[in-house]
């Protein structure tokens, strides 16, 4: 019946189909739908920038307005990917600029961005509105100057965890006086900022809803900024310390009064430096908070932290440091009944084993917060009994990432591996999409994962398993697997080569310090021309022979429609 409708009607119907996956599915129905869908698609997500080329993107989706691109593999976050590996945005921006694409939004993750790219970006798209850079590198404040100066309708500039070289401190002043359209500004990852320019910018942008400051913004300035922007919904404080020289009580009183007027704040983060005695100033907004991120607030701990948490009854997402301790987590459990996401970060990850949270804290949370669906938990230890209890209390996990600081630690009570515990989690959380394992684990845990984790899309494995069977259970069982990343585990060629077609159904596979050999990788590359099988070989000892029996240090393979990449550095070999 649908085929008798004119294209405009189809297009209108497709407007209601917004998720990438749904639109991808729509485009597969028939040629007509493919055609209508491609011309009407405005938002495109490319999970691996090397899977496709900018030219093909432009060709298929000439109407694209919003683009997301991801570059380096996830393990790059943990120093496992060398510098200069790749992930350059320049060719994308150049190609888009040359075309007649009216790009308005660009979101990049783990990509290398140059000042030149930012400059071209800022000058090529008149309606450019939103730039979000997450874990990117390669640019300086010069690039930010170009964005500020040239993007006349900029609404969003969100810099998350990037490595930015700070040259002159002028970029914020490059926003022209006519810039009044800002809705979101995040520069928390920078060290410096021009305070005067910042205050002026905030004053003339009344639609600002999200503002994340950096360490260089003192409390006095925060107070003045909040005076101008009581409409903020999302606030990241910079430094939350009163300058010794100023009149403490006066400033504090003003701050408290100003914050009382900020009735819209729902998300709070920052506190990169904090004097706990100033914290009561934010108590009035705590009861409205739905997201609290104290993962950078090493200065808030002990009773101050508890006092704060007790006021946040409506929290749905909480990110904290493990200073909170098991006792503190019990208080979270009794206070935050709507909690859906919890992240507990280690305050001393490489330290002498003093992680302050254990299985006790996690069980408490699971008891008190049954809506919990997303977890990232760095802890000292974990037991099977605790994981089984958590699985029972919280059957709704979508993301479950557990990181025991000692990666091969068994259940300290029974000295058993944690297979049963994780098995309980995957069996009970039928909608689990992302899982990270740790602790002592045998092949059995992978048997459970293969059997029960039907929706699993991303799996991270480190120092786990006993044999190829482990990896095979996962590859055979997890039909929706998209990303698999493995390090320091005894999986080799047998597992790698058993089902080579599987990798075309996935985005990527990373294996480092495992038992796969050069020969195995070569075989795979030969059999699967639409995979790029890349070997990263950093050792300067190039004189040893490249024998097929040699184990490969790091292998990263991914499906692609455009063949081996041409920008691979010397230490990356693409096998063919």
């Amino acid at each position, binding site marked *: 019946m649908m085929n008798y409708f004119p294209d405009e009607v189809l297009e209108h119907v497709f407007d209601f189909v917004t998720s990438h996956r749904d639109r991808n599915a729509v485009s597969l129905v028939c040629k007509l739908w493919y055609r209508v869908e491609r011309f009407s698609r405005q938002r495109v997500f490319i999970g691996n920038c090397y899977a496709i080329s900018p030219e093909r993107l432009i060709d298929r989706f000439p109407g694209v307005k919003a683009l997301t691109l991801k570059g380096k593999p996830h*393990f790059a976050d*943990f120093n496992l990917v060398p510098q200069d590996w790749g992930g350059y945005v320049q060719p994308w921006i150049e190609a888009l600029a040359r075309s007649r694409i009216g790009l308005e939004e660009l979101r990049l993750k783990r990509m290398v961005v140059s000042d030149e790219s930012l400059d071209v970006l800022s000058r090529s798209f008149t309606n450019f509105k939103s730039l979000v850079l997450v874990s990117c590198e390669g640019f300086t404040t010069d690039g930010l100057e170009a964005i500020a100066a040239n993007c006349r309708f900029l609404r969003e500039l969100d810099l998350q965890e990037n490595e930015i070289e700070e040259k002159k401190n002028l970029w914020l002043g490059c926003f022209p006086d006519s810039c009044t359209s800002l809705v979101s500004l995040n520069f928390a990852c920078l060290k410096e900022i021009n305070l005067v320019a910042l205050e002026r910018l905030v004053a003339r942008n009344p639609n600002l809803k999200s503002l994340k400051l950096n360490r260089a913004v003192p409390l006095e300035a925060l107070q003045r900024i909040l005076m101008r922007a009581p409409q903020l919904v999302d606030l990241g404080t910079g430094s939350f310390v009163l300058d010794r020289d100023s009149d403490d009580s006066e400033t504090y009183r003003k701050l408290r009064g100003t914050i009382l007027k900020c009735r819209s704040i729902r998300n709070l983060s920052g506190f990169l430096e904090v004097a706990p005695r100033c914290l009561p100033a934010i108590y009035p907004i705590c009861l409205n908070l739905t997201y609290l991120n104290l993962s950078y607030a090493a200065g808030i701990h002990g009773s101050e932290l508890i006092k704060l948490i007790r006021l946040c009854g409506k929290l749905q997402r909480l990110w904290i440091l493990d200073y909170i301790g098991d006792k503190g987590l019990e208080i979270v459990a009794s206070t935050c009944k709507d909690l859906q996401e919890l992240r507990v970060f280690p305050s001393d*990850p490489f330290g*002498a084993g003093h992680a302050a949270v254990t299985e006790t804290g996690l069980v408490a949370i699971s008891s008190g917060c049954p809506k919990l669906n997303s977890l990232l938990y*760095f802890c000292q230890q974990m037991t099977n009994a605790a994981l089984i209890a958590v699985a029972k209390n919280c059957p709704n996990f979508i993301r479950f990432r557990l*990181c025991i600081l000692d990666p*091969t630690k068994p259940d300290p009570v029974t000295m058993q591996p944690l297979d049963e515990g994780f098995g309980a989690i995957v069996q009970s959380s039928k909608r689990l999409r992302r899982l990270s394992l740790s602790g002592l684990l045998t092949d059995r845990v992978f048997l459970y994962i293969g059997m029960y984790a039907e929706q699993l899309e991303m799996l991270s494995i480190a120092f786990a398993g006993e044999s190829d069977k482990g990896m095979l259970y996962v590859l055979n069982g997890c039909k929706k697997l998209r990303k698999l990343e493995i390090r*320091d585990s005894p999986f080799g060629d047998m597992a790698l080569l058993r089902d080579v077609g599987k990798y075309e159904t996935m985005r990527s596979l990373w294996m480092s310090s495992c038992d796969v050999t050069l020969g195995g990788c070569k075989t795979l590359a030969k059999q699967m021309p639409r995979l790029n099988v890349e070997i990263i070989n950093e050792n300067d*000892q190039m004189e040893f022979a490249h024998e097929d029996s040699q*184990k490969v240090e790091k292998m990263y393979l991914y499906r692609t429609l455009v063949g081996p990449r041409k920008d691979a550095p010397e230490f990356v070999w693409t096998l063919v």
Partner: protein
Amino acid sequence: MGRATSSSYSSIDSNNHQSLSSSSSLSQLKRDLSTDLRLGLSISASQHNNSSTPRVQTLDYPPIQSLVAEGNECNDRATFFVKVYMEGIPIGRKLDLLAHDGYDDLIRTLDYMFNTNILWGAEVDTKHPEKCHVLTYEDEEGDLMMVGDVPWEMFLSTVKRLKITRAGPC
């Protein structure tokens, strides 16, 4: 058990090792080496690490970005990476000696890294025929010396690289 085997490649960051110019740089260490450096006494720091497995800081674990790990502190922790070779294996590892409290701690890490039992110090003189590996080091004069004879701090000031060799006929 998923342990890194001795033939697996290192994923350790190769930092240039910092020469130990002054005892003050050591005293700024996050880990409190409560030993009197000047007197070279071999009182090892209190064993606050009670776990039986060694720290895996040198293996890029736990998976956390340094931004959050450092928090506010901006530690410029001194590091001193040396190469470690095991006899018969061409590919070496690297180890941060300053991340360890003393010989016991170092041996634990090496045992774990190379999946073996290493004799050092007094143990070498006793009879343990089944334990075949001995830890030696190359000092600043280029000589190969047995590890464990001198106080830890003195060892740190002269060691250039480590070598794990076979003890005797095995």
